[in-house]
């Protein structure tokens, strides 16, 4: 399948927005420090950009409101979950800015966590289609969650540097968490490659095609290797210089972009024609 670029960027931006919000909330449970409300505004912007980009993928975007109609469709659930998530994120951001009472902030946090995690899960499951052998695995769900975690942490550390706002707390602990996430992503990536080799010859062929192969290695280098090494350096020197956090985040984002492109390229259709087995009296064999 040709990469659907609006969806490539949309899912990345949605994961970035949710990832940053979730990281910010989890850190706030452990570290008593003022929360950068501008960062939570950024995550809202990121999520809205993702939604708008996914709407540009539609043939008739003006009929967008029709997407809430079918409760048995995960795509409808993606549309249903997004507005309350945005409401909770906005409420939380306003709470940080206007110093809402703790109980209201807690409601905002719980709502954001619940809807954020649900949205990532539903978005991953949207791709779980029997008609595309490359997508017929729960590895996709793991990959979505792990990449959202890594992107959230690296974005949480890197984006304030880009925005020129105070650096958020919880640095070195989060760096360790991000490194574990990067290793997990690498393992899932290798398993996914193995899965493709087993389930679909055409999907694996698409992965081994020259451009896709290059993108796969770029994902390993930029999406995993560079952020891992830079995070390791930060851990060794026990501080996170601006350059390191910004470079880690940008490198991971570009790498994840390549991964998403590959993700569409390997989604070849199911082979439906039975093959002829000449060795066994011309019997046909169902794929």
């Amino acid at each position: 399948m040709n990469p659907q670029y609006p969806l490539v960027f949309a899912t990345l931006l949605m994961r970035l927005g949710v990832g940053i919000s979730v990281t910010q909330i989890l850190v706030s449970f452990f570290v008593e420090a003022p929360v950068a409300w501008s960062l939570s505004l950024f995550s809202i912007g990121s999520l809205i950009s993702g939604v708008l980009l996914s709407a540009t993928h539609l043939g008739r975007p003006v009929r967008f409101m029709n997407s809430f109609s079918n409760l048995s469709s995960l795509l409808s659930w993606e549309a249903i979950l997004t507005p309350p998530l945005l409401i909770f994120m906005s409420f939380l951001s306003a709470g940080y800015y206007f110093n809402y009472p703790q109980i209201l902030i807690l409601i905002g946090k719980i709502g954001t966590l619940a809807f954020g995690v649900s949205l990532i899960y539903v978005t991953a499951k949207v791709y779980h289609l029997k008609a595309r052998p490359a997508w017929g695995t729960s590895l996709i769900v793991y990959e979505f969650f792990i990449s959202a975690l890594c992107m959230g942490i690296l974005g949480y550390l890197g984006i304030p540097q880009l925005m020129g706002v105070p650096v958020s707390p919880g640095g070195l602990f989060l760096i360790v968490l991000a490194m574990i996430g990067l290793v997990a992503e690498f393992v899932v990536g290798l398993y996914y490659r193995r899965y493709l080799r087993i389930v679909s010859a055409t999907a694996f062929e698409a992965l081994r095609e020259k451009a896709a192969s290059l993108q796969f290695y770029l994902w390993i280098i930029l999406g995993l290797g560079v952020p891992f090494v830079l995070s390791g350096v930060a851990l060794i020197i026990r501080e996170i210089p601006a350059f390191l956090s910004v470079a880690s985040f940008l490198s991971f984002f570009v790498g994840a972009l390549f991964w998403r492109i590959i993700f569409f390229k390997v989604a070849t259709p199911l082979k439906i024609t039975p093959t002829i087995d000449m060795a066994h009296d011309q019997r046909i064999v169902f794929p």
Partner: protein
Amino acid sequence: MNKRSVMVADLERGAGKVAKKKYGMVIDLEKCTGCRGCSVSCKNEHEIPPGVNFCWVYQEGPVGTYPKVSMYYLPRACMQCSEPICVKVCPTKASYINEDGIVLIDEDLCFGCQYCIWACPYEARFFHPGKKIVQKCNSCIHLVAMGKEPNCVVNCQGKARFFGDLNDPESQVSRMLDQNTDRVFRVKEELKVDPQVYYLLAKKVKIK
């Protein structure tokens, strides 16, 4: 009475009936010559733009070495599944099954997300570049409602395609399935979508 007249008589008889119908197709691979007349007639009937098709013919093979060589054609259109994945995943409910078991698209509801195209295991759907919505074979419902056959059936050069009510045990399609149980197969049955297009294998070929 030849086979075609029987089929037309079936449809005419069915058009007036109130009983629930389940339209389906039987394609005899023994008779398919791979001429692609079905694709051309379908394009004419539905004014389908270049590069896409409701109805297409796959070619498997040739395999083997002379003189032991084998090949077959597999015409495909929408399988009109009874449990269609495309209907389940459509977020707008634009895809639906009508009372006669034909899977249709409400063009006023579809917003062209193309999710059904990804989800259909038979590649039966396409994105119409002009209308910006998804389209698919509708078994020529406008003709069937008048008691006529779909255009691909009428124009099949090898007379390999048969269309009718699978709920009617007297219909030609039902009788063909009863009489050829050793040759009948459906594509990708394990997906449990209950496709309503049945194929009859070429006589010298057997299912492994």
